[in-house]
């Protein structure tokens, strides 16, 4: 099939119709280019959205308490259950699939450094919250398990806090210094902030964090926690754990099992899945549009091939008269069609990948940072898929003309005028 004669014949026939070959090739080129380009842009959009999730753990639920709405076990509605450290320990022991639980209790704080007095919130945390929120540590470290175990008086401060207390250009000097929070002296061990600064993450710049055990001991918060984040192990889905956690907490805090309030929760995995689903939908749409464009190109190839076959009736008649079978004729037309689509499609694919890659490189080079667009890519699977589509569509494009060619009657084709 791929011997020299076949190629010779393909090239001879393509060369005879240069303009037409070029025009059809352009159709397929454009189709596959658009497909790749759109999918690449779609991935840029998707990557931008998922970048906002940052290092934030995705298999995570948040749990908090709120006023109950039903009377239960002698308690009046409207009571707010108080979550505490025992709840956390109990859940860790009794719920299967929990990776870690990161609680947080927040109190308003007065932070004093020398003459400067500012009010920032003080968060009491265990060591794992940084894993959930994906914070960035600019300098020093975050809360450590040993800080928690020994109730050390150490504090991690937001970058803006450091800038205010120690001077804008001097924030790095904060490490190792001491400051006073709500009358208690703490040693600064780290400066942190959000992974990406967004309107909804700016509060992290203006917060301070101390070990939760230290908070309970020094600030009289008495074992309370305001909310906690629970992360599931990789092979568990947090949505499967959610109900169990909920009912355990309800029973521990005398909340009616059917009370929609009392224990509140937010499942990040569900949100994540929803956005993922949305982008899969967008991706599907782009494929459909792209393939539509491609089909237009393929129909073009098919049309041209039909014209070619009509023009070559006599030639086909001669070939048949000297012993070519219909199968051989079909094969040569199909090869020609697949050849045009494959070559032009491959060039289109290449152009698409180069343009998308170029956008990525240029964006990184001149450091453009757009909210809605980041790191566009064409995956290897997409490229392979596109090539497969090309082979199939090239074959389909050649099918009708090939069958027409096979039906050519040599007697009619060779009639001497």
């Amino acid at each position: 099939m791929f011997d020299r004669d076949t190629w010779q014949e393909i090239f001879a026939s393509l060369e005879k119709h240069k303009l037409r070959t070029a025009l059809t090739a352009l159709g397929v080129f454009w189709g596959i280019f658009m497909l790749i380009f759109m999918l690449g842009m779609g991935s840029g959009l998707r990557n931008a959205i998922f970048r906002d999730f940052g290092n934030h753990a995705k298999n995570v639920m948040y749990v908090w308490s709120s006023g109950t709405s039903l009377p239960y076990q002698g308690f009046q509605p409207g009571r707010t259950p108080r979550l505490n450290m025992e709840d956390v320990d109990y859940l860790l022991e009794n719920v299967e699939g929990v990776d870690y639980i990161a609680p947080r209790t927040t109190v308003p704080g007065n932070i004093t450094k020398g003459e400067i007095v500012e009010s920032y919130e003080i968060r009491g945390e265990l060591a794992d919250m940084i894993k959930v929120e994906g914070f960035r540590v600019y300098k020093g470290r975050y809360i450590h398990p040993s800080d928690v175990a020994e109730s050390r008086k150490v504090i991690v401060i937001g970058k803006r806090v450091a800038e205010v207390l120690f001077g804008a250009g001097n924030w790095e000097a904060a490490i190792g210094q001491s400051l006073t929070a709500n009358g208690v002296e703490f040693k600064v061990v780290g400066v942190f902030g959000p992974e990406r600064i967004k309107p909804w993450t700016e509060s992290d710049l203006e917060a301070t964090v101390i070990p939760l055990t230290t908070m309970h001991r020094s600030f009289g918060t008495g074992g309370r926690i305001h909310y906690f984040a629970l992360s599931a192990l990789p092979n568990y889905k947090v949505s499967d754990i959610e109900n169990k956690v909920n009912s355990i907490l309800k029973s521990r805090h005398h909340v009616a099992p059917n009370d929609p309030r009392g224990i509140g929760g937010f499942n990040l995995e569900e949100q994540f899945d929803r956005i993922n689903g949305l982008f899969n939908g967008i991706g599907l749409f782009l494929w459909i549009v792209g393939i539509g464009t491609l089909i237009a190109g393929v129909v073009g190839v098919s049309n041209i091939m039909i014209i070619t076959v009509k023009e070559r009736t006599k030639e086909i008649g001669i070939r048949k008269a000297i012993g070519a079978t219909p199968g051989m004729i079909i094969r040569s037309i199909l090869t020609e069609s697949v050849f045009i689509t494959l070559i032009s499609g491959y060039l289109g694919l290449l152009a698409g990948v180069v343009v998308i890659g170029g956008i990525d490189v240029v964006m990184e080079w001149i450091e453009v940072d757009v909210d809605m667009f980041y790191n566009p890519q064409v995956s290897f699977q997409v490229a392979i898929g596109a090539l497969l589509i090309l082979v199939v569509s090239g074959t389909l494009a050649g099918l009708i003309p090939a069958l027409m060619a096979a039906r050519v009657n040599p007697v009619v084709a060779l009639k001497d005028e």
Partner: protein
Amino acid sequence: MIKLRDIHKAYKTEFTSLQVLKGIDLDIQEGEFASIMGSSGSGKSTLLNILGILDEYDSGEYHLAGQLMKDLSEKQAAYYRNQFIGFVFQSFNLLNFKTAVENVSLPLYYRKVDRKLRHEKAMHYLEMVGLKDWAGHLPTQLSGGQQQRVAIARSMVTEPKVLLADEPTGALDTKTSHEVMGLFQKINEQGKTVLIVTHEQDIAKVTERIIEIQDGVILTPQQV
């Protein structure tokens, strides 16, 4: 070699039917050199196309080399054409984008003969028709007589049992015509059955037997 019995053939369109062959009986022995003559429209080409398995017939029987050629699939027809028949046309019917030697070797390509052997054989037959030095030329660079000789080489390259030619000299001048006929004679002397359609008396006279066709039937020698 060729045995025709009561061959009928009509060209049918939607509304009309034109009966062209009205019961042809014909026997041609192996190694014969014959010509078919008849007025225009008498059905000579139709008959030759049936003999060359390019066309089908409506009724009757056609035996070629002892085998019945009837209701063949396209693939079978292509096979028998390629195996038994060499065809030469009035207008040469060479592929213009291929050189002389490529044209000659094409039937062997369809017979899946190895490339090198193909070239050797093609060169051999080009030499036979005296065009060895023109092997690399395109048909458009050759004269009519040369093109017809390339076409004859192409028809011979598969070493067919029967060579069929439909007015092979129709497009050539008298001198070239006789050169081409000389070539057919030479081929016949090598043992091939050669059958030529013509309406030129002096062309027909070169052959050993003249078959007259009139109104779709063959005239018996007594009628001639």
